[in-house]
């Protein structure tokens, strides 16, 4: 089975080379989507063995992931893994995400930070933001996943073709969760470890996600 990792990158030149180096041993190839970076991303990408795509202007992580996923499908990917370029995810968790798909146990696999206690999340995020996101997922979307905002995920080819997210910015995470559940494809969660060199998305970002999803709902 051909496993392709899609890595969106926006001004992540500081961590990019190291991330690609770690991921390339775990997958067959890497699609790097430069989302209109203004730093050294392009120069660094030239030195790496990746399929390099560049958005001429910044369109957001959701948009970059979709571009990479479409391209990976065109390259006959059987499994697509979404990974981050900022060094928050660990490449050694990739096999755990891919295996359920290879074994035919799942079509969609989400990494979860809450299935074990290896992720050291900032307290405010753990005690306030995440429970709020849990509550919103459960009440509005009837989603009972342990991790309400997982960006580390793997899709089978079938799932990647079927899931069509429209959110360009951070709301894509929630939209993919909702679309995955609506698809009725088998979903599995596996434990992952996420590193937090900084706080990451703040509470305001959460409200922005809700607003973006609300506007998208009205526009659909």
């Amino acid at each position, binding site marked *: 089975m051909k496993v392709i990792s899609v890595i969106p990158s926006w001004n992540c030149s500081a961590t990019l080379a190291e991330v690609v180096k770690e991921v390339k041993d775990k997958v067959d190839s890497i699609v790097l*989507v430069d989302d209109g970076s203004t730093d050294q991303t392009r120069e660094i990408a030239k030195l790496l063995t990746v*399929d*390099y*795509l*560049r*958005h*001429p*202007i910044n*369109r*957001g992580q959701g*948009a970059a992931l*979709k*571009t990479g996923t*479409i*391209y990976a499908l*065109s390259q006959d990917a059987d499994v697509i893994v979404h990974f981050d370029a900022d060094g928050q995810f660990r490449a050694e968790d990739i096999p755990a995400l891919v295996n359920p798909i290879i074994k035919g146990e799942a079509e969609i696999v989400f990494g979860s930070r809450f299935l074990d206690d290896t992720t050291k999340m900032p307290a405010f995020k753990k005690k306030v933001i995440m429970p709020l996101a849990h509550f919103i997922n459960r009440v509005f979307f009837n989603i009972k996943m342990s991790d309400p905002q997982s960006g580390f995920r793997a899709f089978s080819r079938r799932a990647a073709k079927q899931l069509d997210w*429209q959110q*360009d910015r951070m709301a894509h995470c929630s939209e993919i969760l909702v679309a995955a559940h609506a698809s009725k494809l088998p979903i599995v969660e596996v434990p992952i470890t996420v590193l937090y060199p900084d706080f990451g998305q703040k509470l305001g970002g959460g409200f922005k996600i809700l607003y973006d999803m609300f*506007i*998208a709902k*009205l*526009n659909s």
Partner: protein
Amino acid sequence: MFQEFIALAVIVFFLLRLGWQFYKDQIPKSQFIFWLSFWGVAGLLLIYIRQIDQLAARLGFSSSGIQLLLYVAVAVIFYVIFRLRLKLAQMEKDITELTRLAAISERDKNKS
């Protein structure tokens, strides 16, 4: 009475200007119809301002019909902003689609 006359004169001025712009092909028909309706409704509201005063009183507003019109205008502005936001979201989506096409076709070009 004098204020109403001034307001009507302003509306007539804009209507004439609108007619001229349409005659000179400076605006499309859809825009002409929209602004014609807009100024037409504004003119009608001014002409029937006494009746609107009575309506405002009947609806329980303590002040004049002009203020009722202001409330309606604010509501309309909110609605227009909301519509604009939806339109912007659609434009953002279109820009992303173009960006994606450019990125993939550039990659395919470099590969071949």
